[in-house]
């Protein structure tokens, strides 16, 4: 398998979009990414599209986007891994290039969640747990699933709602510095604690919002990448794992087994020691669909010992200058979470960070030239971990 690199990235502004349909939204991200790479759509051999899709009118987003954006010489497919669909798209595109099947591939993530009423979107997400055994009679929601994690985590380790609020405050702070973020307003711990319960003990400001958005990356084989740019960002390793459909079949509710497995796989291939992972990384993008999810990620990714993730948040060690800066783009929490676009947007941000072109105030100190992305689908149903490197 050959080395592959990202040679161009693009994003749409995240948020509720009423001015662009799905192909127009995708066009914004793809145009920016191809421009950066110095390529045209005709140079692309494969287009993989991460989109969850239930809420939007177009059933085959890969096809409408492929045509609208002029991918005349490319094959395409939509890939689904729930909230990790974008990472699945990056994985698919990277493998197409690494195998030699494609020289250049584009991974796109795109989602238009605002095409359906909010209550229906809440239902579609809720049905994505285990449909019959968890939704049909009991009406679990996505915040509800992560609340089940929070309740057991609090009980086992003595963490509190106040500790979770630290994560929201940090991610909104960085969101305020990111012009692409849905929320660009600083919030206080009191704001979080005063916000209404969505699924006890999680409150509105513990939750990522419903978002429209698109993100794209151009992935190229080593020879092509080196001919296009002096600063490609290499995909150093990829880890992927799955968890049980039924939440009740998990070992416990204080960590995501799939995240742990995917992290260990990616670390092993990149030569990173699990217990000292933070020392190897300059910055991490982790899956904070809810504040509790970011805490669990600290532990699953080896940034903190079991039961000590909330202390990392409390001590504000995940800001720039801390042990490991996390979600300097605002995370899913403040940047927004257009389901299928999220994983690709993480790749976009990893590239920007490693190339030192994040906006002022939210640029990590790049010493090792190494960044991590961690994208979870569902309630820990899917996990994708990527290690990116500037050398």
């Amino acid at each position, binding site marked *: 398998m050959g080395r592959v690199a990202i040679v161009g990235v693009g994003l749409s502004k995240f948020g*509720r979009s*009423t*001015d662009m349909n799905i192909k127009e939204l995708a066009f914004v991200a793809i145009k920016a990414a191809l421009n950066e790479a110095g390529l045209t759509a005709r140079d692309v051999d494969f287009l993989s599209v991460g989109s969850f899709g239930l809420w939007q*009118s177009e059933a085959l987003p890969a096809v409408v986007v492929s045509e609208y954006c002029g991918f005349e010489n490319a094959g395409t497919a939509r890939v689904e891994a729930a909230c990790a669909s974008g990472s699945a798209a990056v994985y698919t595109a990277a493998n197409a290039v690494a195998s030699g099947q494609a020289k250049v591939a584009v991974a796109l993530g795109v989602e238009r969640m605002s095409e359906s*009423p909010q*209550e*229906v979107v*809440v*239902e579609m997400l*809720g*049905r994505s747990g*285990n449909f*019959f*055994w*968890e*939704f049909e*009679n*009991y*009406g*679990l*929601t996505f*915040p*509800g699933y992560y*609340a*089940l*994690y*929070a*309740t*057991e985590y609090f*009980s086992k380790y003595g963490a509190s709602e106040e500790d979770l609020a630290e994560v929201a405050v940090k991610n909104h702070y960085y969101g305020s510095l990111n012009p692409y973020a849905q929320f660009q307003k600083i919030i206080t711990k009191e704001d979080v604690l005063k916000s*209404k*319960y*969505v*699924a*006890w*003990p*999680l409150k509105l400001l513990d939750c990522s919002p419903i978002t429209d958005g698109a993100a794209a990356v151009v992935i190229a084989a080593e020879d092509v990448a080196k001919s296009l740019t002096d600063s490609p960002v290499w995909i150093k390793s990829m880890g992927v794992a799955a968890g049980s459909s*039924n*939440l*009740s*079949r998990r070992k*416990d*509710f204080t960590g995501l087994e799939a995240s742990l497995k995917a992290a260990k796989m990616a670390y092993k291939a990149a030569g990173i020691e699990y217990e000292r992972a933070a020392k190897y990384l300059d910055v991490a993008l982790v899956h904070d669909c809810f504040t509790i999810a970011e805490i669990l990620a600290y532990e699953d990714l080896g940034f903190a010992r079991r039961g000590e993730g909330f202390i990392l948040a409390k001590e504000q060690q995940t800001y720039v200058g801390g042990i490991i800066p996390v979600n300097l783009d605002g995370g899913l929490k403040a940047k927004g979470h257009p389901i299928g676009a999220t994983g690709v947007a993480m790749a976009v941000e990893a590239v920007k960070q490693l190339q030192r072109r994040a906006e002022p105030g939210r640029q990590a100190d790049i010493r090792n030239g190494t960044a991590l992305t961690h994208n979870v689908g569902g309630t820990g149903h899917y996990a994708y971990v990527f290690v990116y490197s500037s050398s």
Partner: protein
Amino acid sequence: MNVADKSRALQLSEDLKKLSQEAINKSGLPIVNDEKTKDPILIDQNTLLVSYLLPVKKIMPFFEGLMKGEVLATRCRRCGAKYFPPQADCSGCYESDMEWFKVGDEGVLLTYTQINVKPASFSNCEDYIVGIAEFQEGIKIVARVLTNDLKSLRVGMRVKLAVIREAQTRNLVYVFQPIQK
């Protein structure tokens, strides 16, 4: 227990129909301006209604158990793996030779949440509590916790697994009843 309102999605769709009819009367097109951004939005004139049809033949003993007030799980006769939700095929050894057994009456509440923001189908329900409890032989189950008093619940408390009829649909469901000391 409050029953799900399966007609809410239909109601939301009818609200949109009304809105687009007014627009059609005025301009001939189902295009309205977004309340916040004023951008023109076209409202789909078709409505997709789906009720899925689920085959249950291979796990029918589970539903027959509910009729008798019992919650049943399966155990693989070859490798001993236990399954709840019950399944007909063993994911471990790939045999399809299961025996059915009754899940114990009392278990321990492992975690719980109260759903405050509800999905469309449950939108007319009062806030409801869902939890996961563990029973004998390590069987873990997701179900409604029958109480309106969130504060009375604790991780580790005992719950009774019961089969009841939902108040309005009369559908048989299994639930957790908290056992207060």
